[in-house]
């Protein structure tokens, strides 16, 4: 939530007044939602300028979420790879186990400001659903989570968590019954309930102003990283790596560094079974620009604009699009986007467990895999930061199955 610095040609002043990041972003929603989207934007501008809003956000970040999250020097991983010094940004230590909570706190404060009395959200693996149910409980607002029926079946522990937290979980039967369909259904529900309902979107995508406000709430990750690395090393890192599904953790850690050209930024897309197969979720490497879920961005789609099903071992990356600011940062070349397959992520998952005693989320394991690729090519005096966006407790069933272990 730091204001963008007023330097010439800053890359931190996007989006424009219409919510566009270059050719990406925008507000591609039904007319019914448009007045609400405009209201949300007005309310967000007012909140951003209100010191009381920031004070409450910061207080909750500190005492409820447990921030700042540590920036941890990983000695054994560094030694193992034999190159750059590796630091891990420990977002997995946040309350609810991932970066998702940062955004949920910000958005529920906005919901309350707007006088909305019901919360809805979509979820894939259930992490954003759990984080949303958590803040809804904290603020005493009723909450409905839309989750694809297939995901409900394969993520029972998170479904139960959401219910414990008092949320209703709506199993979505349409389409492929996964994250994309959950988002469609949440949008349908929202259109019919705009008068009293706030939609907490889980990633830095959707119609303007969502990509901007989610980024701003998640920028706490990058702001902290900046201060912490200055304290530890007295200088900025050479490279920062983060996993990208919709891309909220990545934009959160990248954004405060966009105007530091010497800091290389790498977003890691899920390549599933490989980019040479149809089973992946790499919207930039394997997609093209189009319009879905309220914004123009890179999408997995066919030549008629029909949206393809994404695939990744990590349910949090299993989405056929990406946040619009990432699409823009790719087009202007400021951030490099690299693919990582299921198999590479699985190997990196195990490496971190054994070398550092940290079980990372499969999402984060994608970034760790690319760190393993890059660190050995860097000098020992260079600094590499990896965003460990979430913890992997939720993934142990998936990993056990992949490793042929019966739990």
């Amino acid at each position: 939530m730091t204001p963008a610095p007023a330097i010439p040609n800053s890359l931190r002043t996007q989006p424009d007044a219409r919510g566009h990041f270059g050719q990406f972003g925008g507000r591609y929603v039904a007319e019914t939602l448009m007045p609400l989207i405009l209201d949300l934007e007005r309310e967000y501008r007012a909140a951003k300028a209100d010191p009381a809003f920031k004070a409450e956000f910061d207080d909750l970040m500190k005492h409820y979420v447990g921030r700042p999250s540590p920036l941890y020097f990983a000695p054994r991983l560094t030694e193992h790879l034999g190159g750059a010094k590796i630091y891990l940004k420990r977002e997995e230590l946040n309350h609810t186990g991932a970066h998702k909570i940062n955004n949920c706190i910000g958005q529920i404060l906005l919901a309350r400001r707007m006088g909305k009395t019901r919360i809805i959200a979509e979820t894939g693996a259930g992490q954003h659903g759990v984080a949303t149910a958590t803040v809804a409980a904290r603020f005493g607002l009723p909450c409905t989570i839309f989750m694809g029926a297939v995901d409900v079946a394969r993520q029972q522990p998170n479904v139960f968590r959401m219910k414990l937290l008092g949320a209703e979980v709506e199993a979505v039967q349409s389409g492929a019954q996964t994250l994309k369909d959950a988002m469609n259904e949440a949008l349908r529900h929202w259109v019919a309930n705009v008068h009293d309902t706030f939609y907490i979107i889980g990633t830095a995508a959707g119609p303007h102003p969502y990509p901007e406000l989610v980024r701003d709430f998640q920028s706490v990750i990058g702001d902290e990283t900046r201060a912490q690395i200055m304290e530890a090393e007295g200088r900025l890192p050479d490279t920062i790596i983060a996993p990208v599904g919709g891309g909220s953790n990545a934009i959160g850690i990248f954004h405060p560094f966009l105007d530091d050209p010497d800091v290389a930024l790498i977003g890691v897309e899920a390549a599933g079974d490989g980019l040479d197969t149809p089973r992946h979720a790499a919207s930039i490497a394997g997609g093209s620009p189009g319009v879905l879920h309220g914004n123009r961005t890179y999408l997995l789609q066919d030549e008629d604009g029909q949206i393809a099903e994404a695939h990744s071992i990590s349910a949090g990356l299993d989405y056929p699009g990406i946040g619009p600011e990432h699409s823009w940062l790719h087009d202007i070349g400021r951030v490099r986007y690299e693919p990582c397959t299921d198999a590479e992520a699985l190997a990196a998952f195990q490496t971190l467990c054994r070398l550092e005693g940290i079980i990372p989320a499969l999402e984060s394991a994608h970034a760790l895999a690319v760190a393993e690729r890059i660190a050995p090519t860097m000098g020992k005096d260079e600094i590499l930061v990896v965003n460990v966006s979430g913890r992997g407790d939720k993934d142990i069933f998936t990993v056990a199955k992949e490793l042929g272990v019966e739990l």
Partner: protein
Amino acid sequence: MSRLAATFAACAAEGRAALVTFVTGGDPTPAATADILDALVAGGADVIELGMPFTDPMADGPAIQRANLRSLGAGTTTDIILDIARNFRQRHPHVPLVLMGYANPMVRRGPQWFAGAAAEAGVDGVICVDIPVEEDDALGPTLRDAGIDIIRLATPTTDKARLPAVLAGASGFLYYVSVAGITGLQQAAQASIEAAVAGLKAATDLPVAVGFGVRTPAQAAAIARVADGVVVGSAIVEAIGAAAAEGRDPSSDVFNIVKGLSDAVRTARQEQAA
């Protein structure tokens, strides 16, 4: 005068509302669509909305969602939709045809390509659900240059302050979405529809057609008394789905439904006067 303007003017001259009917193109199969469209016209539809199927129809209820999936499952492509439109235009030179759908299939090959192909196929207008006036640049100017009407949606959340922006650049007719919601489910209260239509007609000379949740001849007649057009979609699409599930040709069911709606719309104001 455009086909849409001529049709609404002719209906007005007859002292009745126009009946606007929606079906999803290619549902249940591309081959079945021509007969279904002919049944709409034979049953008395004045304007045809041909839905372009999309994998992610965010503004549609279950009936039209399923129709989209049936159509895509049967192999419908954008080229096939345009072929369906082109053949319709040859069979029915005077019946207005409007393409309705979502942004991504329309902008996929660029707005120029889409506008050119739609104009060549004899399409009169386009309704794009997820391009609000704020994103008009994405498609509007090229369609207008190609002589295609941009049909805008007004909703219960479109307030007086916003309405002029929605109307700017709109042509053909104004589509009033009578409920804040998705297609095919709730029905709005008649009193709220009447108030909304009166407000819209005070703000524009465009014909105002009312849709979303209109299912029965009685509902259609009630709206036909106050609006320039009545839009029916999900009720027809459900009948197509039911016939297809039983392996029957849907077109006779479609004819019967539309005939019932059309008779109701044609007599609505006479009954009122009597």
